[in-house]
């Protein structure tokens, strides 16, 4: 039977009522060999320090709540085994986000960017229910399926150097989801989204770091989506020069 291993967890702490700036606190945690990083954090909260605040929910890498920087890398803590780490593990809130408290970051900025791209089927005119179901072939479905796997965990935002420095940049997940709808055969909102992409969304600010795709726990490959979206946005721009009212 495998050994329990004691590890030191150096955890970022920040209480806006007491701390001028973030500090760290170190905890000794006896880690079971099959634990994920989240298990260690929950041990700290349950047994060592109930004042620690961190987000988590499903424990199975579907809800996207438990993203944090572990040893400097954006990680889904319910998915990441503790076993691969050394004697000391550093846990910080996700990079590039304002920190509300301890390991909890401000989500609102992301939710606003997401809403901005209208991540839903946009139709010029809604179909009547009597018209029956909209048909979509397996090939049409396959075009966008990968990009629909996003769980909004925001690890990609934590990894992106452009998100860090350009507040208006829509960011990987929002662009990937906007693109997902643009290439969905049922959608008719591509022109509107492309105008947002080319405008305040500044998707051309993406500078091919590819870090978003490297850290994505669901293999969405947002870098692919963003760069496909750039191409489509240029074509949309070119066609709207020729046809002033835009494609569709």
């Amino acid at each position, binding site marked *: 039977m495998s050994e329990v291993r004691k590890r030191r967890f150096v955890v970022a702490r920040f209480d*806006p009522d007491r701390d001028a700036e973030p500090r760290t606190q170190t905890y000794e945690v006896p880690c079971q060999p099959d634990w994920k990083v989240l298990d260690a954090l929950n041990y700290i909260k349950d047994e060592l320090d109930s004042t620690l605040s961190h987000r988590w929910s499903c424990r199975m890498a579907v809800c996207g709540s438990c993203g944090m920087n572990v040893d400097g890398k954006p990680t889904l803590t319910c998915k990441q085994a503790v076993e691969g780490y050394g004697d000391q593990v550093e846990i910080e809130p996700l990079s590039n986000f304002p920190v509300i408290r301890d390991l909890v970051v401000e989500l609102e900025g992301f939710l606003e960017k997401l809403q901005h791209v209208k991540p839903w089927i946009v139709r010029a005119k809604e179909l009547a229910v009597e018209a029956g179901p909209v048909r979509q072939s397996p090939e049409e479905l396959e075009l966008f399926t990968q990009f629909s796997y996003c769980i909004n965990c925001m690890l990609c935002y934590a990894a992106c150097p452009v998100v860090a420095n350009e*507040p208006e940049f829509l960011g990987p997940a929002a662009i990937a989801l906007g693109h997902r709808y643009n290439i969905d055969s049922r959608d008719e909102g591509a022109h509107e989204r492309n105008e947002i992409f080319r405008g305040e969304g500044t998707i051309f600010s993406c500078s091919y770091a590819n870090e978003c795709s490297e850290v994505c726990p669901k293999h969405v490959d947002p870098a692919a989506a963003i760069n496909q979206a750039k191409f489509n946005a240029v074509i949309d721009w070119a066609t709207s020069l020729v046809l002033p009212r835009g494609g569709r």
Partner: protein
Amino acid sequence: MARPAHPHAMAASKPGRTRTAPPRMPPEFPMRGRYRAYTLFDATGLVYLLLGLLALRLAWALGDGEAAWSAAMAGFRNPLYLAFHALALVSVLFVGVRFFRLFPKAQPPKLGPLEPPPAPVILGGLYGAWIAVTLLLGAILAGGIF
């Protein structure tokens, strides 16, 4: 401590009810982990800018006449220029490999009825063109053809 990010990075449009700690950049930025290759990739912009300007200078000298051209070509024998061009060659290869790796997945999945060819075909085409043009242009410049 990681570098500070933009003070408004990922900020909400309205302030929250409590004070927040400012956002910080990924700790490995700029030169640790995979960020090193990324930062160097951006830094090759300087090499490309200088290469373009040097080619411009040569083109201008070619129009000025034999004396200007010979002087410009002779200048390239300076060890500083040689070192720069050696660095430039490495940079150009680095940029090509990194960019070609990204290229297939950056193609839109469908343009009307057209689909892009599979990734290995695209990569084969890109590398094939790179090698073919390098050999052809190299042979021309080095006096082997024409």
